């Protein structure tokens, strides 16, 4: 009896909701009554898009003058809806909520829900329309300023069909400065449209205060329109604002390119450093270096999985916990490789080239057979998600920043090891004059082994850093190896600083060329540049000086 009644009612609701204005009035009621709630979710689950949008609208209007609990309920509801947590059943909606399901109408909790309860599909336009309303409702409902700030920023993306007047009124009462600022951004378009000069000036000053392409575009649009109701003062203000914004935007774009160069350079550096050290010490190019990078990444992954299983609490920090492992695993493999193969081939660098290539093939296939070819899934810690804007359009992504950070640390660490430790001393001695070092009692064999392990370990660190940027699979290294060779060649034999500079330089070159001429062209030009460079400086940036 009750069920049928509800269905009938909902049918009517849907029917009416197609007739816009009348319907929105019809819904203009307090929203604590179960039936109203039911109407809302019913439309949201199965209504036409227009109907749903109208429903959002009316919900917003109702929320404004509803009491706190009702506001809270509405805010949660629309939030869950946006995040795709609805499970539409025949006569209600459930929301997954720690192991349980919450009936949004009655507020009861259930262990299980009917099988036919399914998740409504929100297509792109609907989600676009929904987003601003959701933010608006939360803006109204939320007490805490940070929540309201979030909501306001959400609105700043687009105001959608939310009425500017409403935001205006909220803005008027807003106490919190940040939120107010965010709201100004939201209101700019409205203000510009309004004939009112003060509003327009306010809008322009707001635009002038955030240096983005969008605000530049807005100003351009504003300046283009030939409307009389724009006063001279406004126009000049707009023009000056436009030019300043434009200038900063361009600067920020340059900065972006430079940053891209930096981050790519740091990747190159990480990959090439170990190579350079080993090459410098033993004149051996280790073609398996790229695979040590891969091993490092896999070690990181295993650490992550171990943490996931044993200490989920620490999972957030797996990247740092993994550092020693990412270093040690390749280091050990490297040491073994040195002991079993490389050391038998000193004074035969060319054969070593082939031997190490074979090893790289072996490593790739071992990993392929044991772990598989699929990309490993890495958990992205909160602190690595997205990034932040420095100024204008120049924004920095955390993961890239992390790799730069790692590169910096590695550089410092390596310099320390080489110039401040006895091992480093032995290494430098051996590098400069093998026999002599041998004579003064440096065990060159052990030094070589250690250095090889050290270089391999560095590659492992590179793998750790890369795991946050690229995806990890057995062949991840192959694309890196040649670029890092070029770096070593340019940097000069075994010079850490040389490697760093070369990596940065090539990174920049890439970043500058790629946007215009594409990835291939950048690689080609870089190589040509390197060849010409070698014509001038056959021994790289920092040749090892000394008497023959």
């Amino acid at each position, binding site marked *: 009896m009750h069920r049928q009644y509800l269905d009938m009612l909902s049918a009517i609701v849907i029917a009416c909701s197609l007739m816009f204005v009348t319907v929105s009035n019809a819904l203009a009621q307090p929203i604590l009554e179960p039936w109203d709630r039911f109407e809302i979710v019913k439309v949201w689950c199965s209504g036409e898009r227009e109907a749903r949008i109208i429903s959002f609208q009316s919900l917003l209007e109702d929320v404004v003058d509803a009491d706190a609990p009702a506001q809270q309920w509405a805010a949660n509801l629309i939030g869950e809806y946006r995040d795709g947590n609805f499970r539409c059943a025949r006569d209600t909606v459930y929301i997954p909520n720690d192991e349980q399901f919450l009936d949004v109408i009655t507020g009861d909790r259930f262990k299980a829900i009917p099988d036919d309860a399914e998740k409504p599909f929100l297509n792109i336009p609907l989600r676009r329309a929904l987003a601003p309303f959701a933010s608006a409702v939360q803006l109204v409902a939320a007490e805490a300023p940070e929540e309201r700030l979030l909501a306001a920023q959400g609105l700043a993306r687009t105001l959608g069909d939310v009425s500017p007047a409403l935001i205006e009124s909220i803005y008027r009462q807003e106490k919190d400065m940040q939120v107010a600022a965010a709201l100004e951004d939201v209101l700019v378009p409205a203000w510009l449209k309004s004939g009112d000069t003060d509003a327009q000036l306010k809008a322009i000053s707001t635009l002038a205060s955030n240096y983005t392409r969008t605000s530049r575009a807005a100003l351009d649009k504003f300046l283009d329109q030939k409307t009389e109701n724009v006063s001279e003062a406004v126009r000049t203000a707009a023009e000056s604002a436009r030019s300043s914004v434009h200038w900063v935007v361009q600067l920020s774009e340059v900065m972006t390119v430079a940053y891209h160069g930096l981050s790519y350079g740091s990747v190159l550096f990480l990959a090439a450093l170990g190579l350079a050290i080993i090459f410098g010490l033993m004149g051996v190019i280790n073609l398996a270096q790229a695979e040590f990078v891969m091993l490092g990444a896999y070690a990181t992954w295993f650490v992550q999985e171990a943490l996931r299983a044993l200490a989920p609490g620490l999972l957030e920090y797996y990247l740092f916990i993994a550092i020693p492992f990412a270093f040690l695993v390749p280091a050990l493999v490297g040491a073994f490789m040195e002991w079993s193969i490389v050391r038998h081939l000193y004074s035969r660098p*060319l*054969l070593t080239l082939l031997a190490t290539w074979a090893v790289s093939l*072996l490593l790739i*296939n071992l990993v392929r057979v044991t772990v598989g070819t699929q990309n490993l899934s890495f958990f992205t810690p909160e602190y690595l998600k997205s990034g932040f804007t420095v100024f204008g359009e120049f924004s920095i992504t955390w993961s890239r920043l992390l790799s730069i950070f790692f590169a910096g640390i590695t550089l410092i660490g390596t310099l320390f090891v080489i110039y401040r430790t006895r091992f480093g001393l032995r290494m430098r001695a051996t590098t400069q004059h093998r026999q002599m070092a041998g004579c003064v009692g440096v065990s060159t064999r052990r030094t070589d082994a250690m250095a090889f392990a050290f270089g391999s370990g560095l590659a492992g660190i590179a793998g750790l850093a890369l795991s946050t940027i690229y995806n990890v699979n057995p062949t991840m290294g192959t694309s890196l190896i040649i670029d890092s060779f070029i770096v070593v*060649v340019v940097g000069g034999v075994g010079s850490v600083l040389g490697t760093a500079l070369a990596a940065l330089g090539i990174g920049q070159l890439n970043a500058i060329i790629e946007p215009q001429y594409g990835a291939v062209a950048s690689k080609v030009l870089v190589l040509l540049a*390197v060849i010409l460079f070698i014509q001038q400086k*056959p021994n790289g940036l920092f040749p090892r000086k000394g008497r023959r």
Partner: protein
Amino acid sequence: MRQFILWICGGSKIDRRYLVVLGLIALVTIGLPLLGLGSLASSPLGLDGFQVNMVGQVMAFALLAMAHDLVWGYAGYLSLGHGLFFAVGGYLIGMHMIKLSYVGETGVPTFLDYMGLTEFPAYWSGFEYFGYAFLAVIVLSALVSFLIGFLAFRSRVVGVYFSILSQAFVYVVMLVMSRNDTGFGGNNGIADFQTLFGFSLGSIEFRVAIATISALILMIALIGLRRLTTGPLGKLLVGIRDDEDRLQVLGYETLWVKTGIWCLSAMLAAIAGLLYVPQIQVASPQLLSPIFSIEIAVWVAIGGRGYLYGAIIGAILVNVVKFWLTRFMPELWPFILTGSVLFVVVVLRNGLMDPGPLFTRAKFLMSWRAKKEKV
């Protein structure tokens, strides 16, 4: 008779192993038409089209390996970019075959079509004539190799540097050729060839013919290079490999000697490519992949460098095993390859042609262990 054999061997004494390999190739040259065509083809000894085709490919690889050995084994420069010249030959003969199938009719292959071309661009003209194509192969490979060689040798890029640079070269060219706008079919390369010299590429006759020709050319090249390397130039090369400064102080423009050898090797590699592509019927950037170029060096290393015939043995051995394993135990192939490379490089060092180190090293290990026990 003996005179003739000496002439073949070059130098003053008879080298049996060299003659064996030479004989082997001669055998293949004669055997292919006999076993591949005619009445014997159907006999249990007979070779079917696939086997003929495979022998043909291996012959082309052997030629390539020998060209590589000329640079590595004799001048001491390990090239990890010989695929570049191989590809020059391959692509140009490919252009020839494409052009052949478009003689007399309008229109262009799809990969040119994508670039919005309605007729062949200027640099394709003339490729319908084999003579022209062949000339182009020789000239282009010589040109490219001269450029690389001259730049590299002039600035005294040596040893590992040289290897890496050659690899970087082939890598970059691969990237360029993988682009569609380059006009050579991009990543797909150029394919669907129909005929060459009027043969249909699929026909057994053609396969036997090209395989035989490959073997013949291999034989001729082997004799030629053998005479070259045992002759005065060989001495010069040994000199360059062992102590280049010394030679220069003796007044040799080693730069030109090296560049000359490098170009010669490049041209041979290009010819090998020219023989290879009609047999696999596709010329794609894979010919330029760094891995392939390294594999060439691996053949030579396994066979043994500095013998010429060593390179040939290496190429035959590795590729036969590869063909065979990728079919029967695809999983095993990479491991076997790595295993054999490591064995040869670490234990044998000079390749199969010189199993000496095997024993000496064994002895060394023995004595070493004995010493350890004493201590």
